């Protein structure tokens, strides 16, 4: 932004000096012009030119600022995994965010033109612009929180998921180690012969998490028919300690509603659900041994939702927050361009029988191209300096996965890295990347002034 001002200021006096062609008046006029520009030039020199030059110089020295390292800091940018990641992420940002925003803005602007409550709608979309990045960052940090009790996005995802999939009764329960075997899919099994009692000891359920109807566990039944399996699924943990592992002790509770299956040769031959005291009975089983299985559906852990702020999704998630803020801006700007479009071209196209899509593709977009470019380039410049959103939304463990040039520049120079040499090098790199976009914008600005 600063560079734009520089050029504007310089362009000013030239334009002012232009009409003063008379030889006599020329010199004093120039002097006066210079006098007028001087304060601005001084300010710009002190606040823009000097810091830029200082940073360039500083970037050739090491962390302490005393040893000259030449291009060492620049080489370090591409060697250090963290800064390299920042370069990569900035590239993603620059490519993805402005294109998405311009596209979204265009679509919304065209659509909004056709709705009745256009102004209200525009106002609504533009409102996030009034929210500071810091506040927006905090809002989205909360919205993206992985805990469905805190993060609204995961709350939505989880409730949709649970509506279709349902939840299990004992997500925390597990078989007593050594007494039950756990299969790879999370189910537990043991072997049993009909006629003998089967005990299925489980642990890991809090007393308050037991289903309401749970009763003290039935002791292992002794009489069972020759073709039936009888047994008990129970919580093998006596509150306050004590009790024998693998035995039904006095104060231990049964686990009702547990699905139990008898399996032979990989085929389920009988299945049932345990009663309030945890007892179950599987009938119609001819002699031989069976595998008694508690299928994993009993224990399926609750669905946790999407880890928005995990290493993989954190950058897209932050770009999402950025879109929320800037869509209104893109829409309003493009909308303004849209309003100045020559109506006759559109009318003519309609008369010739073009449909709305054709008008959009062949007329609106090409005519809007200059505005779209301005919006795009402005956003590119803006995206390069994105800092607050990244710094606030990314939690500590994934900060490095989300980092961009601006955050990395701050982190290595002041946020603990204490290497202002490398920080300056990153700053210079950022400047070099922004300059083409600036030049482009300034050129366009001048051309449109002429």
């Amino acid at each position: 932004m600063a560079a734009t001002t520089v050029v504007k200021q310089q362009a000013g006096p030239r334009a002012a000096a232009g009409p003063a062609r008379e030889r006599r008046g020329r010199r004093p006029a120039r002097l006066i012009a210079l006098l007028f520009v001087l304060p601005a030039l001084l300010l710009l020199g002190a606040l823009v030119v000097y810091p830029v030059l200082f940073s360039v110089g500083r970037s050739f020295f090491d962390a302490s600022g005393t040893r000259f390292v030449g291009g060492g800091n620049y080489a370090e940018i591409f060697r250090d995994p963290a800064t390299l990641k920042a370069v990569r992420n900035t590239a993603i940002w620059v490519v993805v965010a402005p294109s998405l925003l311009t596209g979204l803005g265009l679509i919304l602007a065209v659509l909004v033109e056709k709705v009745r409550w256009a102004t209200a709608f525009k106002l609504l979309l533009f409102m996030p612009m009034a929210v500071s990045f810091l506040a927006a960052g905090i809002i989205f940090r909360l919205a993206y929180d992985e805990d469905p009790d805190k993060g609204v996005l995961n709350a939505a995802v989880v409730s949709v998921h649970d509506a279709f999939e349902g939840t299990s009764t004992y997500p925390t329960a597990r078989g007593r180690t050594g007494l039950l075997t756990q299969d790879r899919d999370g189910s537990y099994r043991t072997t049993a012969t009909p006629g003998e009692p089967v005990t299925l000891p489980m642990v890991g359920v809090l007393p308050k998490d037991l289903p309401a109807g749970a009763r003290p566990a039935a002791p292992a039944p002794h009489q069972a028919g020759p073709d039936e399996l009888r047994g008990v699924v129970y919580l093998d943990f006596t509150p306050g300690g004590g009790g024998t592992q693998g035995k039904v002790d006095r104060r231990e509770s049964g686990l009702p509603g547990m699905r139990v299956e008898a399996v032979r040769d990989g085929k389920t031959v009988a299945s049932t659900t345990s009663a309030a005291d945890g007892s179950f009975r599987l009938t119609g089983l001819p002699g031989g041994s069976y595998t008694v299985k508690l299928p994993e559906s009993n224990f399926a852990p609750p669905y946790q939702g999407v880890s928005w702020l995990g290493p993989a999704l954190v950058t897209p998630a932050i770009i999402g927050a950025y879109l929320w803020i800037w869509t209104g801006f893109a829409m309003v700007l493009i909308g303004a361009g849209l309003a100045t479009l020559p109506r006759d071209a559109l009318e003519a196209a309609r008369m010739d029988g073009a449909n709305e899509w054709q008008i959009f593709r062949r007329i609106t977009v090409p005519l809007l191209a200059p505005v779209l470019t301005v919006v795009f380039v402005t956003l590119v410049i803006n995206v390069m300096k994105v800092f607050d959103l990244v710094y606030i939304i990314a939690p500590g463990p994934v900060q490095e996965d989300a980092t961009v040039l601006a955050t990395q520049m701050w982190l290595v120079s002041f946020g603990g890295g204490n290497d202002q040499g490398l920080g300056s090098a990153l700053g210079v790199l950022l400047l070099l990347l922004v300059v083409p976009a600036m030049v482009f914008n300034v050129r366009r600005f001048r051309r449109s002034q002429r």
Partner: protein
Amino acid sequence: MMRRRTTLLTGCTALVLALGATACGGGEVSAGGGDKALSGQTVTVAGVWSGSEQKNFQKVLDAFTEKTGAKTQFVSTGDNVSTVVGSKIEGGNAPDVVMVPQVGVLQQFAKKGWLKPLSGTAQQTVTADYAPVWKKYGSVDGSLYGLYFKAAHKSTVWYSPEALTQAGVQPPKTYDELLKAGHTVSDSGLAAFSVGGQDGWTLTDWFENVYLSQAGPEKYDALATHRLKWTDPTVVKALTTLGKLFKDKQLVAGGQKEALNTDFPGSVEKVFGPKPEAAMVYEGDFVAGVAHDQYGKSIGKDADFFPFPAVDGGNAPVVSGGDAAVVLKDGKNAKAGMKLLEYLATPEAAAVWAKAGGFLSPNKKLDLASYGDDVTRATAKSLVGAGDSVRFDMSDQAPAAFGGTKGAGEWKLLQDFLRDPSDPKGTAAKLESAAAKAYQD
């Protein structure tokens, strides 16, 4: 890190105040009668404290005024002591005494030549009344500059007595017992530990306790100053020990993924909050403050601690931190400032704040009866009792780039290790390369 914990200590203070410790102890201190030799002078003291910590420190300063007649003025520097003090010195407005919260900052000040060595009297008191380790952490290149007035105890495992009773386990004495007790707790349906992995410093504290106990204080010191490389087998062993706990889904509430998503206050909430998910949380004495202030737990009854247990037959670790008082050369009343330090070295001064609460003193001479409640008394006893085996928080001794930066260095690497503890050797190698860069040797 340290700064953050200091703010947490504020909570502790409020807690003990609420526990019914006598509200004010300012009056009784000057029993010996002051000679008012310093009347008319003003000592300026700068420190990170604010809120109730500042208020309680003011009581100590008031007691000093009563004794000597010198006026005092406390300036809160906010988080960044070294920047504030540096600019004040340059501006010709240096405070006389600074309370320095980190060893690294004390060394930085001493190397810049800002500090005055302690007076003979103060040195004698430190030698006689403090464990030698405190003298060591207050010294730079053989001269003693810092007097440790206030200490923190970072080897305390806080637990919910109700949850441990429910599971029928006793506070364990060794690390193996700790894991065993953890498994029993998890059988009862509650996870054993809640780990606040979203804050890197909780993980460095875990590591430091295991390492200090397992590898011993000599290796700990060597590693803290980076004379020992992080690729050393002892580091790999400590990481392996820690990894065994981290990767056990039964021991860590919600498993590794949830641990990484839990910050320090969140980890306290998981034990002492309205919906408990775990029975124990490891962190320093300031856990008590959070448990009391935020969740209304009464300390000693609904929340208690046991010392971090010994690992593999070593001694039980005592990791600590503290605020050291130093005198600046450029202060206008440096002489009176030194008198204040001499006063702070006495058990009399420590007793003033101990009574107000939220304070531990490394001074051996301080009567444990001065502390306002039993839990604080127990932590103080453990800290003083550890004598010379107390070690300072290693990450606080390291350059900030390695030991104190969100998302970088040790914090980040231990978080990665929590996410995937399968390769302790690889983690050690990464720690070494990050350390080499930060220490620049």
